[in-house]
């Protein structure tokens, strides 16, 4: 490789992966926190079934998950058809489709630490706060979030790096379109296929560095707190 080639090295897959992982993580925390709360509040049969569904993406091969997500998000699937009626195009092979698919894929890793946190949360803390005059949102901010700080951080980091590293699902749903859905893992695969090991190495090293830093921060912070 020449010096000129490295000057125009395409970092956009890394940027796209970071964007995808960030958006997915934020949305998952917003959706996963009330879901986790709902799942632990009472243990009915329905809630156990939902728990199993939430955990299912962990058990399935990513290609299986990706295949069904592609069907659902494509023009003939329920979500895709809805999107097509709304905006004229389905979710297949779009960034929005990737976000939805990533949310499903990473949901278990976000919900699991949160349910564990809620299980551990002593209801007396909430009752005490209520009797001292704190309403529901006040209790969420002044009791739940501080007590679940470590669990929220764990959920965020796991959701982020899991999304950051996914391959099978993004390949099936995103279709590897440069600049739109070609995320880091797909770009690395393409570079290796083209025998461009140097490019593959640069992106891979970036991925290792990112994930390691995120995990290191997680353990530094959570283990100091406990």
């Amino acid at each position: 490789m020449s010096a000129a080639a490295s000057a125009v090295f395409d970092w956009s897959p890394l940027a796209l992966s970071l964007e995808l992982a960030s958006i997915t993580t934020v949305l998952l925390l917003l959706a996963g926190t009330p879901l986790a709360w709902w799942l632990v509040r009472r243990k009915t049969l329905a809630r156990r079934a939902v728990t199993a569904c939430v955990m299912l993406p962990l058990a399935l091969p990513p290609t299986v998950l990706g295949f069904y997500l592609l069907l659902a998000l494509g023009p003939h699937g329920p979500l895709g058809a809805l999107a097509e009626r709304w905006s004229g195009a389905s979710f297949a092979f779009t960034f929005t489709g990737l976000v939805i698919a990533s949310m499903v894929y990473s949901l278990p890793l976000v919900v699991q630490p949160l349910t564990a946190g809620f299980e551990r949360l002593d209801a007396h803390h909430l009752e005490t706060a209520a009797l001292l005059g704190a309403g529901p949102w006040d209790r969420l901010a002044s009791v739940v979030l501080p007590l679940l700080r470590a669990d929220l951080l764990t959920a965020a980091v796991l959701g982020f790096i899991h999304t950051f590293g996914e391959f099978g699902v993004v390949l099936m749903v995103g279709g590897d379109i440069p600049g739109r859905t070609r995320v880091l893992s797909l770009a690395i695969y393409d570079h290796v296929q083209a025998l461009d090991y140097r490019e593959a190495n640069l992106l891979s090293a970036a991925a290792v560095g990112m994930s390691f830093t995120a995990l290191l921060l997680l353990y530094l912070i959570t283990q100091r707190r406990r």
Partner: protein
Amino acid sequence: MLTFRFQLRQGGFDLDAQGVLPAQGRSVIFGPSAAGKTTLLRLMAGLERGAQARIAYGDELWEDREQGVRIPPHRRGVGLVFQHPVFLPGNTVEQALRYGWRRRQPAEHRDGFAAAVERFGLGAQLRRRVETLSGGERQRVALLRALLAAPRLLLLDEPFSGIDAELRATLLHALEALHAAEALPMIYVTHSAEEAVRFADHLLLLEAGRVRALGSADALAADVSLPLARRPDAAVAIDTEFVQHDADDGVSRLAFSGGELWVTASRPREPGARLRVLVHARDVSLARTRPQASSILNVLPAQVAALAELPDAAVVVSLRIGATPLLARVSRRSARELELRPGCAVYAQVKGVALQNF
């Protein structure tokens, strides 16, 4: 007035309790463990769901399942001190105390924080972390935290059960002083008969989820058909006023409705100071004629109101001295030889009087 009716089934437990408690003074919910005392208190605070509940405080309806009314706990203005209070980890004592204070204390009282903290002897503890507090300190902080949130009604769930007797007396004293100062109505749950009798103006006896009796503490504590009076440690509390102190003999004279009592006391009080004394049934003996030259300081003419046989060859006798009830526990033989009947006149010899140390 706190008017309530609760029906709740939880697992094998079944609570069906209704009653009216005055919105003033100190009410005690007394009963054996697993009678549902804590559940009843939680229902009053609005912490239990799934009950057939109707509760009104004065003319304020807090909850009525049929009308679909339910005021959530944070808007009832009720304080609750749990048996095992919890604090947010990492908080300092000051942060814990300010939580409710910030949210509930009216603006014009905002400068009273330091004074309240001092009154509870917690001034030096404000910067400590809650994790480092001892059991007694936790209870004290929890109690003050509840008070600083300016409740209109304070509920206490066996708040001092896990701590030693001396400290418990101190805390009860603080509570008593507070009650006298602020006239804050309190409902206090306990399974200790002595605490119940000492503390209560009104008593609610709860057994297996049902209200066995509800009324003034004087009457219920001395009612021989109820379990309190039949216990080996049965006692009645008598509200008295300090009259005079004899420093040479170390005794004080106290007046109550119906008579006077001499009690051993180390120091005089303010004339007219109100003192509650506890007289145990086992410390009262009976005679048909006035005893002469006795070592007993207090000999009070009394009338037998009722009596009941107890299992261990004993008889518990409910007496009236004027309007004031008193209990005596005598042997079955003594009761027969004295020919005790309801209505007959006796002399009650009161041996020991516990001057309320709170």
